[in-house]
């Protein structure tokens, strides 16, 4: 893929389930190595949009190109190759409950990389160490806390060194300090691997700290409200609802 192709490009995208559209008129372009935050009220369709962006669901109409490939048009080989370049953290972590953390992270490597198992082990250990889970490596997902599961989910999403990471509410349910560490981790991953990241978050300080761009989904009009760097929304002259979303947390009443 050409280095100048945008990593993600949507035009007039409409997402939904069955015949019911959840969110329409979504258009934006994300360059390589940038971090995009998707924000909006609960239930407005952030997770749904993310699934479509990541190629897990088909769009209802419009187009969406991931790494220069339109996943709804591409043949299955191109689709799979593109999906392998992306990592996904689900809102509920979605770790395989019968595998230990190590096995969870080794699983995609075993499927896709033809390298020795000792090398796979060492990669998995490194990835888990990156998210601070060296000590819980042989635990089952049922034996760790929700925040640890999130971090393990991130490690699994990073298993194949993806070009783009989709993180659905990575810091939900984490304490402020851990959540701050997670922001640093996200920034470091971007800086070191030049990975592009799309994340859903409700935490304004964290969005301001990490994201380069921000998509605001408007639940009243069911359309994309605004697309701009998050700092811009602090300006009262910007999109009104997005501004109130951002200022509500920053300035206590």
């Amino acid at each position, binding site marked *: 893929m050409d280095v100048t192709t945008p990593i993600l490009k949507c035009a007039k995208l409409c997402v939904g389930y069955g015949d019911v559209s959840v969110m329409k008129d979504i258009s934006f372009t994300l360059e390589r190595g940038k971090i995009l935050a998707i924000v909006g009220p609960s239930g407005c369709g952030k997770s749904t949009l993310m699934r479509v962006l990541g190629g897990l669901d088909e769009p209802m109409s419009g187009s969406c190109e991931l790494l220069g490939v339109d996943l709804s048009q591409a043949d299955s080989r191109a689709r799979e190759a593109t999906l392998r370049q992306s990592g996904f953290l689900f809102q509920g972590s979605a770790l395989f*409950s*019968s595998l230990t953390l190590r096995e969870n992270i080794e699983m995609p490597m075993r499927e896709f990389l*033809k390298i020795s198992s000792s090398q796979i082990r060492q*990669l998995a250990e*490194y*990835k888990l160490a990156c998210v*601070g889970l060296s000590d819980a490596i042989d635990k089952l997902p049922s034996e760790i806390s929700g925040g640890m599961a999130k971090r393990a989910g991130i490690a699994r999403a990073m298993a194949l060194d993806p070009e783009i990471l989709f993180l659905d509410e990575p810091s939900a349910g984490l304490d402020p300090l851990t959540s701050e560490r997670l922001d640093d981790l996200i920034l470091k991953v971007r*800086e070191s691997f030049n990975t592009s990241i799309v994340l859903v978050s409700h935490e304004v300080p964290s969005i301001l700290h990490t994201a380069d761009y921000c998509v605001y989904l408007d639940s009243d009009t069911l359309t994309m409200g605004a697309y701009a760097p998050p700092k811009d929304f602090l300006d009262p002259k910007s999109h009104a609802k997005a501004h109130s979303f951002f200022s509500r947390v920053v300035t206590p009443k």
Partner: protein
Amino acid sequence: MSEKSARQASISTENQTGGLTIIKIGGSWRIDQPLPSLNFKGDQVKIVSDGLEDFDSALPSWIHHNFKNVRELDLSELPKRLQSLVRLAEKNTQWKSEDEKPNLLENFGVWGIESYSSWGRAMDHIGQTSTGLFRTLIGRSKVNWSDFTLQLQTAGVDALPIVALLGFLTGLIMAYVGLIQLRQVGATVYVANLVALAMTREMGALMTGIIACGRTSTSFASQLGSMNVSQESDALRALGINPVEYLAVPRILAVTLMVPLLSLFATFVGIFGGMIVACAGDLSIDQYLNQAIKAITFKSFLVGFIKSFFFAFIAAWAGCYRGYVAQRSALGVGDAATSAAVLGITLIVIADAIFAVIFNLYNF
């Protein structure tokens, strides 16, 4: 991504005076290619680049793996990006959780405590079930009655075809075996006694009990087990509802109501199956039926009925218990289903043996 012919990852080691080891790394390090292996002893290492081309997480993971226990690791001459990747994996005090591997003796102890506590949990569950049943009797429990009617259907009515088939075949097989033996003494007419008595006292209850274990226990165990996984049982508890009472009581009631009826049904179908074999060979329908009616008394019906009542309770309880204590994982739910069937069948056979002794003692 880039398909250009990259040089393979390479290393060379140089031991210097004063215990310092210099390791030169070069080439291209990618996670989909084999990496060089390293045999190395020492606690002072400096890694330098020697024609290092490109790398992904393969290189930091290799460094992390080989040098995580080295006292002094000098990376200062490596690219900044690589340094920060290695540092990312360093032990961080801010999110640590200490954990030590248990040794053999501890494992043994843990096993002992666990097997002891699993008896405890079984007793606890029996206790909760009984109080739940009692509270239901006096109308003070919270029970999901829609589960009750649903289970009447799925554990009862839906089992009719399989119970009919197996009951029929059991009667048929017994008649065959019996006929061969009875012919030798010229008493073929007693095949009716054999089939009728065995079906009413023994086989009707046992077969339906085992079918209930295979169909119902496993389904209960996986239903309740997956409710464990998704924390639904915790949600019930948080609402102040006892999950054993709410979930297990309606299921057990429905099964103990339906399985004795199924067993009765199996008995008649089995006697009918025996009749087909007997009448195809040596007996007339009249002879067979007369003989059968003479053979069975109300007492033998009662024996079969009491047994199947207990078997039903065992099958339903085993499923609910195994689901209740299931591990919170997909694997745990599968294990719960398997062990529910095993537990149910084992307990039913043991109970049958106990009944045989008791009924014999009291000449029932």
